[in-house]
């Protein structure tokens, strides 16, 4: 038994040590980069109550960043079912690994952050609590993964533990008021009980999985599923391959962004109704949703660009590769479907946020958020542009079928920038890090502009793009750049590196129109 456990541990670590290291560095990099920026601008006030909120948000983010690759690396436990190990042994080995790795990384991350930035954030309580939450999630997945209950059960358990974690820093409603510096015996008892309950649930779930069973609510699930299924016998009829492929893309991926927006509205409203009930906070949450649209658009872009036959494989599958369509047409339809999906999601957001804003006006309640002075109503279309840029970046990462390469490039650049910033801060005059950041911003902007230019020239050379499309893209870029720089943010003109970085990011708004057919041709024919 112990040699089997050692073999499982060896398999996990040998395959996954690099993923774990990179995810840890990525999580730490994200936090340190934000804190270092604040510190350089003398905006890091250690006594400010906002620091507590920052600490908790960073913990949530890092818990997800640390846990995600662990779940990915642990993989489907079904591959162990033919090994002479009990279901309990398999479940425990996986959950103990999750607990130790998540807790260990949070402790290490907090110690590093405290040391580098000069903070005094608590370590043990958050580490154990969030590691317990990760194990709870894992156990809930084991129990419910063959049923429709996975999302509601994991969601409810995560919400419950998340709310308990929030109460360690203050009241259930309102902002946090103190750090969780000391873990009381009662809190230890709650966490140990949650951990023990998770282990029991996980072992039971693993045993069910091994027999190919699930929670027995099949009749109810079939009834729920029938609401989402097409009418039997009512299959679509298409005029041509283009309309068929648009249907293919929309049915598979188009619903994500609009669905997330609607789910976000209902989810936020539900949580708000329980913990807050201050309508100005709900208005603020919907307002922030405009920024969050970019995050979900990026994920949506990753999905749209994925032509692989499996989620984890971006290399185009045989079925799509053998469609009698040119790369230009096929990728063009993907971009159209992605645009349509984004437009619908954005319209949902506008409708929801607009309705709430109107309600506040009608009720005579002043919203807590005021549009940033220089942005004003530009914020609304800007959310669409930022979301499109994010979607385009995601799409370009996966459509070439070499997403890992791009991810490594991006992560490597980010880690290089962080190490440089932190090192310069300690080794020399802190203003040197500002020069370094300026250099990196300039390099990034120039790279993005140069890459976009190369995409268009290469696509044109391969006849994947017409000259009319090229001119349209150039006109759109110039129009958007002038609008943003002169109309929305003239301050950019006074800061060269930021201007160049901004122009580089704006270039990403037109990059997909050339990058998509080029990426697909690179993916489809190797």
């Amino acid at each position, binding site marked *: 038994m112990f040699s089997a456990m050692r073999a499982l541990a060896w398999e996990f670590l040998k395959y996954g040590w690099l993923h774990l290291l990179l995810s840890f560095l990525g999580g730490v990099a994200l936090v340190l980069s934000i804190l270092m920026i604040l510190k350089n601008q003398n905006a890091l006030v250690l006594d400010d109550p906002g620091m507590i909120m920052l600490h908790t948000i960073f913990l949530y983010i890092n818990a997800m960043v640390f846990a995600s690759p662990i779940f990915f690396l642990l993989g489907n436990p079904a591959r162990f079912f033919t090994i002479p190990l009990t279901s309990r042994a398999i479940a425990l080995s996986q959950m103990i690994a999750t607990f130790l790795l998540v807790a260990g990384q949070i402790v290490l991350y907090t110690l590093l952050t405290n040391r580098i930035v000069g903070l005094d954030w608590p370590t043990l309580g958050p580490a154990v609590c969030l590691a317990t939450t990760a194990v709870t999630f894992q156990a809930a997945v084991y129990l419910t993964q063959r049923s429709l209950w996975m999302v509601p059960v994991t969601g409810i358990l995560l919400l419950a533990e998340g709310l308990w974690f929030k109460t360690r820093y203050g009241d259930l409603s309102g902002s946090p008021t103190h750090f969780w510096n000391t873990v009381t015996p009662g809190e230890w008892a709650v966490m140990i009980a949650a951990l023990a309950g998770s282990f029991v649930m996980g072992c039971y779930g693993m045993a069910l999985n091994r027999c190919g069973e699930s929670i027995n609510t099949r009749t109810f699930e079939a009834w729920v599923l029938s609401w989402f299924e*097409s009418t*039997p*016998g009512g*299959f*679509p*009829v*298409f*005029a*041509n*391959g283009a*309309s*068929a492929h648009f*249907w*293919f893309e929309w*049915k*598979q991926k188009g619903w994500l962004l609009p669905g997330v927006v609607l789910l976000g509205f209902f989810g936020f409203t539900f949580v708000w109704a329980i913990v807050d009930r201050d309508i100005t906070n709900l208005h603020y949450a919907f307002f922030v949703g405009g920024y969050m649209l970019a995050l979900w658009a990026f994920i949506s872009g990753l999905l749209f660009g994925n032509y692989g*036959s499996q989620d984890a494989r971006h290399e*185009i*599958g*045989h*079925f799509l*590769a*053998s*469609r*009698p*369509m*040119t*790369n230009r047409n096929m990728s063009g339809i993907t971009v159209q479907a992605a645009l349509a999906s984004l437009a619908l999601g954005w319209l949902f957001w506008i409708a929801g946020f607009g309705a709430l804003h109107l309600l506040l006006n009608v009720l005579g309640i002043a919203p807590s958020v005021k549009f940033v002075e220089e942005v004003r109503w530009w914020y609304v279309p800007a959310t669409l542009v930022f979301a499109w840029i994010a979607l385009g970046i995601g799409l370009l990462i996966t459509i070439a079928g070499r997403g890992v390469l791009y991810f490594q490039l991006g992560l490597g650049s980010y880690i290089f920038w962080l190490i440089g910033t932190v090192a310069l801060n300690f080794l020399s005059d802190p203003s040197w890090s500002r020069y370094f950041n300026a250099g990196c911003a300039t390099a990034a902007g120039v790279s993005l502009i140069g890459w976009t230019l190369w995409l268009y020239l290469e696509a044109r050379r391969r006849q994947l793009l017409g000259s009319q499309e090229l001119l349209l893209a150039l006109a759109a870029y110039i129009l958007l750049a002038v609008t943003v720089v002169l109309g929305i943010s003239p301050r950019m003109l006074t800061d060269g590196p930021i201007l160049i970085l901004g122009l580089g990011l704006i270039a990403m708004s037109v990059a997909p129109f050339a990058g998509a057919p080029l990426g697909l041709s690179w993916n*489809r*024919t*190797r």
Partner: protein
Amino acid sequence: MDRASESVIEIQSLTRRFGAKEVLNGIDLSVPKGGVFGLIGGNGAGKTTLIKHLIGMLKPQHGSVRIFGKDPVDDPVGVLGRVGYLSEDRDLPNWMRVGELMSYTSAFYPRWDNHYAEELRNSFDLDRNAKVKTLSRGQRARAGLLVALAHRPDLLILDEPSSGLDPVVRRDILGAIIRTIADEGRTVLFSSHLLDEVERVADRIAILHGGRIQLAASMEEMKESHRRVTLRFDKAQTQPPVVSGMLSCEGEGQEWTMILGQTDNNLAQMVAASGATVIENESLSLDEIFLTRVLR
């Protein structure tokens, strides 16, 4: 009419490397119009790699590939619009229903025959409302074959169509191939390492081994040219006899058995000169021909 114009597939000097490993080395192959062409080789011989070049998923690093006289990379519509393809991994969208798969695929092919598609669906016993991900391996192969056949392609490419399937399903697939042949002028290319099936249905075959085409000929020519001959000599022979075209020889003393890749007067002359007697002269199965060719 010259041979080139009769060919559906023309491959010239095709070479492909993956890193340091050379998978295809100077492949020359011509598949004539009409009939069934079997591409046989062991695991890892390069059959799927060759097929990927045919549908444009791989670009030749050296040499050329032409389907209907066109480059499948440069003209995917012109080539793939006339090709029906079933991949080895049965890649189909798992989220689609069988009916949706038929509707979606039909939109790409103007020659899609709804009546024929329904006929195939019924004969393959596929439920229109069943999701692809719920289909068994055999059903999945049938679904893939349905959408590959229903638009009556000029060229049907099947990569290991029978792999992992039970004899009943294999019979269905072979039945579908034969029906395709019955349509005038259509061509089938299928790769397989199940030689008994290739032997039953193929008109022409090519043996792929070590990145090269070891042999390409009609089934009839192949059977006629490969013989197992057993000779009995008057005196014990210390060395194996030498005959041109001999692929292998085993035995000792007076009795020697050889496998010949070509039969000509040389054997008769050798037999007469040495006073040997032919005690056995039989044709080989495709399995035996293949093993002899690749184990040399």
